[in-house]
């Protein structure tokens, strides 16, 4: 009886947690095609080459409109760039600051600077973007149901609108966006960037690379977290076994 109840309780808890969690992911979205990501799974790590190519895509394409509010240039060491490379990337940006004389001035960026924002504020962004606000991308993979698969699907999901659909002015058809009308024009096109490593810059390739980069920016602690997690979970599993053995020993003289 007890065994049955224990099993039922565990099963109930499991079903309950599984049944409630994915429910949030449902909505008006189309089913997202699953991609295989280097950073997926308990041992997944970021494909450094893809993440670096993805940074190039962000830098040359996305950053014209989207900021990485929470990220710093120094974070780029996490995708395998050297301190010198990061310093050079930061120095190539002109950062607005206040000079020693108290007057506004521009200076070359430092690794400790946040990524330079394309607009001074949200109102300036809207004014330049036909009223739409390009979302900050520093948490975009965590902030959308479907995560990496969703952002990839969105970037590759542009097509001509169905003939029976009335599109609003300046909007673009995208089959994965809620309501199917998105203000962002198709950001990627064949050969939009030229990869230094010679990888052909197809839309799918660029989308995959930039999503890998953004996944890193959303959760820069991922690799450290998983590596530590393996050790800690193993430790507790081992401790469970040891403690159980001690428990058996302690209880061996009890008639129960």
């Amino acid at each position: 009886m007890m065994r049955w109840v224990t099993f039922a309780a565990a099963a109930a808890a499991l079903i309950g947690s599984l049944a409630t969690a994915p429910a949030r992911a449902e909505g008006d979205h189309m089913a997202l095609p699953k991609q295989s990501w280097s950073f997926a799974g308990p041992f997944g790590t970021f494909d450094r080459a893809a993440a670096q190519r993805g940074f190039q895509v962000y830098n040359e394409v996305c950053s014209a409109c989207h900021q990485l509010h929470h990220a710093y240039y120094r974070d780029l060491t996490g995708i395998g760039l050297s301190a010198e490379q990061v310093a050079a990337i930061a120095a190539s940006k002109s950062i607005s600051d206040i000079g020693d004389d108290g007057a506004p001035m521009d200076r070359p960026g430092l690794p400790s600077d946040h990524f330079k924002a394309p607009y001074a504020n949200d109102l300036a962004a809207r004014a330049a973007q036909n009223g739409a606000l390009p979302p900050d991308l520093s948490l975009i993979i965590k902030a959308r149901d479907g995560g990496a698969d969703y952002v990839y699907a969105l970037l590759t999901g542009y097509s001509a609108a169905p003939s029976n659909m009335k599109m609003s002015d300046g909007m673009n058809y995208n089959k994965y966006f809620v309501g199917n009308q998105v203000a962002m024009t198709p950001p990627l096109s064949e050969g939009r960037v030229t990869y230094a490593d010679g990888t052909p810059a197809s839309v799918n390739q660029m989308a995959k690379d930039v999503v890998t980069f953004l996944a890193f920016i959303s959760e820069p602690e991922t690799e450290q977290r998983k590596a530590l997690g393996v050790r800690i979970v193993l430790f507790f599993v081992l401790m469970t076994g040891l403690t159980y053995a001690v428990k058996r020993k302690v209880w061996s003289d009890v008639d129960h």
Partner: protein
Amino acid sequence: MAGLHKSEFTNPVINWVDSRLPIFTMMQKEYGVFPTPKNFNYFWNFGALAMVTLMIMIATGIFLAMNYTAHTSMAFDSVQRIMRDVNYGWLIRYVHANGASMFFLVTYVHIFRGLYYGSYKAPRELLWILGVVILLIMMATAFFGYVLPWGQMSYWGATVITNLFSAIPVVGEPIVTWLWGGFSVANPTLNRFFALHYLLPFVLIGIVFLHVAALHVTGSNNPLGIDVKGPQDTLPFHPYYTIKDSVGLCLFLAIFAGFVFFAPNFFGAADNEIPANPLVTPAEIVPEWYLLPFYAILRSVPSKLGGVLMMFGSIGLLFVVPWLDTSPVRSCKFRPVYRWFLALLVIACIVLGMVGAHRPEGIWVLLGRLGTIYYFLHFLVILPVLGKLERPLPLPESISKPVLRGGGPLPSGAAAKPMEKA
């Protein structure tokens, strides 16, 4: 010496302290030699698990508070600073965030244990009531905590929950304004929620202390639900239950760590990674999983005030459960019929949880109403009536003796085996 406690500790330092403040004697009495029924199963781990989780929550919470800024313009960014710039900040925050879910998980199992084995019945009514108070404070604390990251779900969750009070006739609107400290959920609201989120866990410690104190007056219930007849039925808490609790604790921490390190956002909502925006309502405003059944009850009643009353009533009902149950037997082990109704209650709660996560349309409306009806029916009708109709199975003579089949006579010479430890 007059006025000094007669301490039995031989270590001179401990003896000196214990003579003046007998905390060592108390610990020895309550956690060392405390006589505990010897037939606990692993369901009796969950109280200790909840206690440990509370400590983990307070420890991580204090470190989060050192790095958090309770201001609407900085709260979201300060949480991101914790995640990115504070040493192991991501670990502290993920332990705290997943810890909330773990806390409710073990507490719900603990409550189920109490219901299944009749731990709420005389003489443990007050113990149970204190437990319900703990549950209520936990819910309030969890709600306040969920508001602090100031994401979309934080903001809109706070708006929905505080607006529940507007259902109260006449004084509802002024109460909501008073709760907000203004005319919308805004900075004063965030500030007071942070203050309350920091305060309530310490209130919780106080109530938990009373919960444990009450437990140590009546003694623990046990899977048979019968009273302890003598020392042959019990074991000293240490080492028997300290080690048994440790087994469960290690396994629990392994699962807890599994979530923290490999699926830290499993229980989270993507919308809460978007900063709060009063001008944009998320497509779905969904509370955390542990509040979903109550949210489902709220939405199953086609009247705002009715829904609010039913939702609070669903928890309020738990306070009187000791007097709703009329059965003379505690443990469901000896209640062949009620056992199945209790299983039905668990199913109803899980169904309600699923209903709460879905939009109230189609089949979910019907399921929500059926679940709500069964929840109240269970406590208000089945519990009182079934206790009078059901014929319980024969109870064992004592914990250390097997069940008497067919109510036969006691085997002769069945003197209790001496179980006391030397």
